[in-house]
């Protein structure tokens, strides 16, 4: 039987290949039959291909993770975020361990109004956030009731006056003054947990006397 030489690296050690069957020779030349071959060159090529496939998959996974991270970051920065509240200063509207959703768009569009509940960065500790209600915006005259006398404060330009709904147990603008608008992070629009109080949040339970800058004196 004629012994047809196998091209380049496909040299098999067994003498049975030398029988000349063309199909068998073709199959032996392809890298799919790694395990059945005796040569090291074909198995090297197959290994490289397998490694390349794995590298491609890993890079694809990293690419997906980066894309997911960017989209998640944009969502938290411009659309809204979930916030877990703690503390008694906003009772009965928001109690401790409630989960609320705060949206970011109104803060970026400068549409925070009197009566909104906002999440803001703390003035004295930038890593902490506070959750209070906006009582007055810039130009408003806020009355500051105390046991003996009432005083008024004008909210300066670029600032807001915040107060908690639980007036007896809240440190807010009555203690540290108006806070800059730039510290506001977002407006609370929806309460998500506990489920029996799911929904939009209520109005201010306290009667505040606030004269807006456009009201006549």
């Amino acid at each position, binding site marked *: 039987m004629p012994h047809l030489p196998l091209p380049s690296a496909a040299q098999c050690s067994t003498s049975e290949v030398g029988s000349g069957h063309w199909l068998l020779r073709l199959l032996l030349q392809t890298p799919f039959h790694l395990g059945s071959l005796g040569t090291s060159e074909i198995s090297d090529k197959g290994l490289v291909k397998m490694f390349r496939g794995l590298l491609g998959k890993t890079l694809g996974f990293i690419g997906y993770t980066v894309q997911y991270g960017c989209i998640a970051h944009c969502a938290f920065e411009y659309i809204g975020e979930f916030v877990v509240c703690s503390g008694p200063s906003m009772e009965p509207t928001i109690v401790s361990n409630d989960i609320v959703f705060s949206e970011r768009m109104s803060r970026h569009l400068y549409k925070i109004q009197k009566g909104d509940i906002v999440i803001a*960065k*703390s*003035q*004295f*500790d*930038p890593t902490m956030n506070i959750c209070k209600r906006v009582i007055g915006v810039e130009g408003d005259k806020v009355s500051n009731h105390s046991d003996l006398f009432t005083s008024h404060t004008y909210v300066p330009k670029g600032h807001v006056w915040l107060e908690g709904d639980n007036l007896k147990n809240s440190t807010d603008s009555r203690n540290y003054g108006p*806070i*800059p608008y*730039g*510290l506001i992070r977002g407006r609370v629009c929806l309460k998500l947990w506990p489920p029996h109080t799911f929904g939009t949040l209520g109005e201010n339970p306290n009667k505040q006397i606030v004269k807006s800058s456009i009201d006549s004196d």
Partner: protein
Amino acid sequence: MLVYHVARTLGYKNRFVRVPDGHFWIEGDHHGHSLDSNSFGPVSVGLLHGRASHIIWPPHRWQKIRPALPPNRGPLETSED
């Protein structure tokens, strides 16, 4: 740990100011022609947007901006408890 600085002001309503927790005292290098803490008081750290690190234009002014206090503007009292 309580850290505070006392700054001498230039044209502020008080001569000396104790900078509160979580605030900065910022000044323009060209005082007198600068709208800074001497006009509006200490600034909250939460309002910080970024730090100028390099000048990139015009090309003849390429440089790294080094943090340096002007000679007579250091804090008068820095206390760490």
